[in-house]
């Protein structure tokens, strides 16, 4: 029991990320409104960013900015003193990708709206069915 609790407590960030990921995925699969799906898509992407940032965290370490390095070789820099910068770098890129995807998805949604005058998927499908029958 204690080990279970310690597992839950020591990895609480990861549980939250799984939670958010499930929310995002659920919205993308189940929701009927296209804008809602796009919001879900963004939640999915941010949840993955949360996961990466959690990998980078390091207890007892500080921000990955070296503040005393100006006058040459003053102190040796120890890796344990600084948070792992690599996941941060990767996630900067991932955020950019997320906003780029968002822009394209919204542009497509606007196009869909101008074609069918609605953003609800079931209404769009019924319109497509109607046009097939004609």
């Amino acid at each position, binding site marked *: 029991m204690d080990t279970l609790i310690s*597992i839950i407590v*020591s*990895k*609480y*960030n*990861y*549980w939250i990320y*799984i*939670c958010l*990921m*499930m929310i995002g*995925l*659920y919205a993308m*699969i*189940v929701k009927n409104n296209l804008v809602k799906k796009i919001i879900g898509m963004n939640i999915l992407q941010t949840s993955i960013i949360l996961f990466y940032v*959690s*990998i*980078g*965290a*390091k*207890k*007892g*370490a500080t*921000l*990955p*900015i*070296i*503040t005393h*390095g*100006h006058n040459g070789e003053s102190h*040796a*820099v*120890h*890796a*344990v003193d*600084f948070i*792992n*910068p*690599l*996941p*941060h*770098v*990767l996630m*900067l*890129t991932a955020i*950019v*990708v997320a*906003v*780029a*995807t968002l*822009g*394209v998805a*919204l*542009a*497509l949604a*606007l*196009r869909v709206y*101008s074609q069918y005058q609605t953003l609800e998927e079931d209404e769009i499908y019924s319109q497509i069915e109607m046009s097939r029958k004609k």
Partner: protein
Amino acid sequence: MKRIGLIVVLLCGGLLVYGTIDFPGWGDPEAPASRHVSPYYIENSIRDTSVPNIVTAVLADYRGYDTMFETAVIFSAGIACFFLLRVFSRKSPDVRLYRHVPTSLTIRIEKGGKLPEESPDFERIDDEWTPYDLIIKTTCRLVIPFIQLFALYVIAHGHHSPGGGFQGGVILGASIILYAVSHDLRATIRRMSERVSALLATTGIIIYAGTGLLCLVLGANFLDYGALAAVLGVDPVSARSHGILIVEIGVGLAVMSTMVWIYYILSSVGRNDEGL
């Protein structure tokens, strides 16, 4: 559909939970992620590039190639929005509305009617025009210069503090978007036309990729800023630092103009008229 979706999501979540059990604890300094590659960056970034902000050093130098494509991703999003939504209306619309600014009167001009001359008194509006709030307008006008100043600071100071080309570029773009939201889109486009924003975005990436290409021409590998030492007249380590700054400026330029461009297109559904 709802039930299938729920089952898929739960399955996926269960799978991830199962994998998480074997994770190293959160924030463990002995975790493999913190021990293999990243110590090299932390311990050597000052020596290699003389940039105190390790994230900037890794972003623009060690993994600078990723960042070049990150800028290209943003650029392709801009182009994609333009390609998908932009409409070019060949003929001018039948009815045009103009507002006389000092008196707030609206003039309606039918087809064939004479248009008011280009003067600051008249502004063209659409039928969904709503009055803009004076307080918001004035406040935004007051705040925007400071936002832009801050954005420039963020770009320039990315070596020493959080921030850099991308964040600064977004803030710079946001300031222009703020202008467009608080005033109207036509006024914004008069100040920064669509063509200018497209060309600035292109210029930004050309600065980035061109820096890389210059290194290649100078005999080093692509994006190896150390080769710029010969051009800049400094030692290779400061050349890397300067190279990072040049590249960050390119990123900032590209990101700013692309954000503004996407906003122009989304907010007017490709017509570039009234906006929000």
